[in-house]
């Protein structure tokens, strides 16, 4: 994932504002605890749920029981968006990233995810590692996924109002 273009949409931004740097947005996104993940129901409707998650230079990682609705959605349509935001009118920033989602099942990535989840959320959020998935404290599998953004948007507020678009390329 490589950032290839950053642009301000001047229709929705105050005059002469600079694009919000991706590094600022990336830090806010990485530090967020609860994300809103939107996948697509079989009838094409958006399905949004809160999830815990992790950010790395590869993209956004999350986990889900294999029978959950979001997994059914992703098996049929492997695209999604993830959003974090501020509910305040004058402060904060909204961030939306959109792209394809793939399952990750290699032990190296699962191990990194397990350690990163504990570091971020505490011992309460500990998973075991099975052959190709996490194992939760009931002994049930939890599948791991990676959303690789192709495009992202940030929406800043008040006198710094800017809508900035980020485009990413993939090797």
């Amino acid at each position, binding site marked *: 994932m490589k950032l290839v273009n950053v642009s301000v949409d001047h229709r929705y931004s105050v005059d002469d504002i600079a694009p919000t740097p991706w590094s600022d947005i990336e830090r806010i996104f990485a530090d967020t605890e609860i994300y*809103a993940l939107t996948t697509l129901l079989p009838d094409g409707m958006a399905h949004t*749920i*809160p999830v815990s998650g992790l950010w790395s230079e590869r993209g956004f990682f999350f986990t889900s029981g294999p029978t959950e609705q979001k997994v059914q959605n992703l098996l049929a349509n492997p695209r999604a968006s993830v959003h974090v*935001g*501020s509910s305040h009118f004058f402060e904060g920033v909204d961030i939306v990233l959109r792209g394809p989602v793939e399952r990750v099942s290699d032990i190296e990535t699962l191990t990194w995810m397990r350690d990163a989840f504990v570091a971020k959320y505490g011992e309460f959020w500990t998973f075991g590692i099975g052959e190709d998935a996490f194992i939760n404290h009931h002994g049930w599998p939890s599948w791991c996924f990676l959303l690789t953004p192709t495009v992202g948007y940030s929406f800043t507020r008040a006198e710094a109002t800017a809508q900035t678009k980020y485009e990413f390329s993939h090797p």
Partner: protein
Amino acid sequence: MKVIDTRIDSRYSGPLSVPTPWDDLLPLLTATEIYTLTTILPDGMPHTVPLTGAFDDLGFLFGTGPNEQKVVNITNDPRGSVQIGSALFAEGVDIVLRGRIERVTDRITLAWLAETFVTKYGEGWRFGVGSDSLLNADDLPCWVFRLVPEVGHAFVHGERGAQTPYEFASEVQP
């Protein structure tokens, strides 16, 4: 919006959790300043934007320039969802309402929304009322839409974490 069924989803709720009453959620929805609206792009991908809005008895009201992407999306597929949430792991609640989006052009609702916007967001958010839309400071039309919820979900975070689904009765417009 009339709730016809409320049960907890025990798969995603703790042993001490109880269903979150719909009446507890309405004040949160009403007081929220910035909402998240998701519509469907013509290619089927979700399109999510932050926006201002207000709740009336029938659903979630919002305004938009007629040329904006969300209007293109709604014209193509009039379904969407509105979400508010908490970014914190151990506290807060996420609420997602899903339903159909329809344009609102009656002057009573437009006038109510214009007044509500000024009260809620201040003088910078003052609109005039035109024949079938709001009018912004440059006298350009701002179309008004209402998302009428069909289903909703609340996700309470923390020790008493609970996932509560809500079904809404379809109501006939007055």
